[in-house]
C-alpha cells in the first residue's frame, strides 16, 4: 500500500508536467490541425531562459518564471508570424516540416548560447530538499510546488479559455476557422495568440520542472513524445483530455515501473500511443472521427 501511495504521488507529479506540455500541443493542434514538433524544444528554451534570469542574473524565481513565460509568448508569436503563417496555405506537411526545422534551430541555439557549461546544468531547488512526511509518505516540498504550480497554470488557462473574449475567439477559430472569419474574428491574430499561448504554457512547465531535473539542450524531445502520448490519449483536440491524458501517462509510467519492471517504464508511453492509435483513435475525450462524404 505504501508503495502504491509513493507511485501515485510520483505519477501525479510527473503527469502534471506532461499534462502542461500536452495542453500546449493540443491548443496548437486544435487551431492548426498540425502537431508542433518543436513544442518540446520550446519547453527546453523556456527552461534555459528561466535559468538565465534566475541563476545567471540572480532574479527571484517567480519573476524568472513570469519573464520566461513572457519570453515564451513572444517566441511563439514570432514563430507563427515568421515561419508558420506563410506556410498555412501550402498544407499541413509544410507546417509539419517547419516545426521540425524550428526544433533543430532551437536546439542549436541552446547549444550555442548555454553550451560549454557541462553536460547537464543544475537549477537550484526552490525549497529545502529534505523530505517531509504526509501520512507516512515522504515527499520533497519541490514535488508539491511543481504540482501546485501545474494545477494553477491549468486553472488559469481554463479560466482564460472560458471567460475571456480572446479565449472564446480561439475556441471558435479552432472549431471552424472559415466560419470564424465570416463572423469577423481576426483569425490571423488568433493564430498568433494560439502559438504564443501554447509556447507560454510550455515555458511555464519548463520553469516548474527545472528544479527537479537538470537542463540540457536535448531535454525537449522525449518530454514532447511522452506529452504527445498524453495528448493523443486525451483525444488530441480536447483540452480536458490533454490534462487527463498527461496525468494518466505519468501514472502509467510510475505503476508499470513499480509493478512490472523498470525496463518497461520508459516505453510504456510509446505503447500507449500505439494502443490508442490502433484501437481508440479518437482518444478518451476526442469526438468521433468524421469522414467527409
Amino acid at each position: 500500500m505504501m508503495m502504491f501511495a509513493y507511485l501515485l504521488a510520483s505519477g501525479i507529479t510527473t503527469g502534471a508536467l506532461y499534462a502542461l506540455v500536452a495542453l500546449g500541443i493540443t491548443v496548437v493542434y486544435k487551431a492548426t490541425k498540425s502537431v508542433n514538433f518543436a513544442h518540446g524544444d520550446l519547453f527546453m528554451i523556456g527552461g534555459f531562459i528561466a535559468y538565465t534570469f534566475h541563476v545567471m542574473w540572480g532574479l527571484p524565481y517567480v519573476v524568472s518564471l513570469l519573464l520566461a513565460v513572457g519570453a515564451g509568448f513572444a517566441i511563439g508569436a514570432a514563430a507563427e508570424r515568421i515561419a508558420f503563417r506563410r506556410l498555412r496555405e501550402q498544407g499541413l506537411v509544410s507546417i509539419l516540416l517547419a516545426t521540425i526545422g524550428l526544433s533543430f534551430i532551437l536546439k542549436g541555439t541552446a547549444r550555442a548560447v548555454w553550451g560549454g557549461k557541462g553536460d547537464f546544468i543544475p537549477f537550484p531547488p526552490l525549497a529545502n530538499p529534505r523530505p517531509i512526511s504526509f501520512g507516512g509518505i515522504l515527499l520533497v516540498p519541490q514535488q508539491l510546488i511543481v504540482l501546485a504550480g501545474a494545477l494553477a497554470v491549468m486553472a488559469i488557462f481554463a479560466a482564460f479559455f472560458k471567460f475571456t473574449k480572446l479565449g472564446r475567439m480561439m475556441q471558435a477559430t479552432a472549431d471552424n476557422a472559415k466560419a470564424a472569419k465570416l463572423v469577423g474574428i481576426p483569425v490571423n491574430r488568433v493564430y498568433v495568440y494560439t502559438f504564443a499561448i501554447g509556447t507560454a504554457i510550455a515555458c511555464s512547465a519548463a520553469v516548474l520542472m527545472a528544479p527537479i531535473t537538470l537542463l540540457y539542450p536535448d531535454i525537449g524531445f522525449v518530454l514532447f513524445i511522452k506529452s504527445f502520448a498524453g495528448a493523443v490519449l486525451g483525444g488530441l483536440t480536447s483540452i480536458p483530455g490533454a490534462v487527463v491524458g498527461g496525468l494518466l501517462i505519468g501514472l502509467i509510467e510510475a505503476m508499470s515501473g513499480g509493478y512490472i519492471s523498470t525496463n518497461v517504464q520508459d516505453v510504456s508511453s510509446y505503447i500507449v500511443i500505439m494502443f490508442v492509435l490502433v484501437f481508440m483513435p479518437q482518444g478518451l475525450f476526442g469526438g468521433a472521427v468524421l469522414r467527409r462524404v
Partner: protein
Amino acid sequence: MLTVGKTIVAIGTLLAGAALAFNQAHAQDIPGVAKDEIRIGSFGSLTGPTYLYGKLTMNGVEAVFAKVNEQGGVNGRKLVLVREDDRCDPATAIAAVKKLVFEEKVFAIIGGGCSNATLGARPEIIKDQIPFVVFASVADGITEPVAKEIYSTMTTSSIESRSQVQYAVDKGAKKIAVVSQHDAWGQSRYEPLMAELKKRNITPVVDLEMTVDDNDATVQALKIASSGADAIIMVLYAKPGAVLIRALNKLGQNPVLIAQTAIADPVAFTKEVAIPDATDKFVTPSAVRYTPTDPEVKEWVERVKKMFPNDELSIFNLMGIGSAQVLVAALKAAGPDLTRDKLLAALAHIKVDTDTYAGTIVCNDPVSHQCNQTPAWIKAAGDKAEVVGVTKLN
C-alpha cells in the same frame, strides 16, 4: 700530395657527411619524422558539448610536448602536435585520421575522445598501420581484439565495471544493487559488470534500469529501499544519476554509490544533485590519481593554464599529460633511428610511471593493449575532489 693525416681527416669527413645524408634520407622516408621534429597527430572533439574529452585532453598532451621540447626534444627532435576535430562523430573521426595520415603525414597519433568516434576510426588506423595511443576513449572494442597499432592508456569500460565490483567488495557491501542505462553506452559497461558479478558469485539484490531522460526515480529508489541494498553500482550518466540520488535521499536511503567515468567530476556532480550530504558516499573512478587542485600536479596545471588561459582546467588535462608521457617514453625507447615498427615494439612491453596516472602503465602485447588497469577513486570534498583509494586489478 696528401699527407696521411689529411687523408684520414678527408675520409672521416666523407664518412660523417655520408652518415648525415643517410640519416636525413632515412628521416625523410619515415612520415612525420624530420631531422629536427616529429609530427604527432591527434583527433578528438574540439567543439560542441563533448569538447572536454578531446580539446582539454589535447591541452595536456601539448603541455608535455612543450616541456619535452624545452629540454631538447626526443633524441634531438622537437614534438609537434597536429589537432583534428572529430566532433564526436565516427564518420568525421575516420576523415580526421585520413587527413592526419595522408595530408599532415604524422608519425603517430595520440587521441580519441568519444568512444563511438574512436571505434569508428579503428579500422582506418589498422589499415593505415599508424601507431595510436588512446588517451580518453573507454570502449573495449577500440583495443579488443588486440591490434598491433593500438594501445590505450585510459581505463577501459570493462576495467571500470570490474573495478566497481571490486570497490563494493572492498567496502564490505553485502547487498549490491545495479542501476544502469541500457543504451549502447550503458550496455558496453553493463555486460562486463554482470559477468564480473557472476564470476564472483554475487547476485545483485535488484537490477534496475533508467534512461538518460528520466526526471524521476521514485520507482527505482523504492525498489532499492525494499531490497536493503548497502551499495549501488551506477552505470548512469550524470543526469539520471542525480535524479536517482535525489529520489534515494527522499526515501532516506544512504548506500555507497559507485559510479563510472561518465560522471567524471564528483564536485560538479554534487552541485547537480544539490542536496547537502546526499553524495557523501558517492565515488567515481578516475584514470588519474590527482585533480587539478592537488599540489602534486601544480607545475603541470600552471603550465596548462599559461598555454591555454581561456580553457578551463580539468581532470582531462591530467589524462592527456599521463598519456603523452607514455608516448614520449616509448618514442625515447624507440631510439634516434625512429620507425613506426620501433615505436610499436617499444609500446608493446612498456612499463612507465607517469606524473598523473594512478598506477604504472604496463602494456602486455599481445595479451592486452589496455595498459591502464589501475583506476583511482575520487569523491567530492567541498569544492575539491579528493582521491579516496586505488583499485589494482589482476
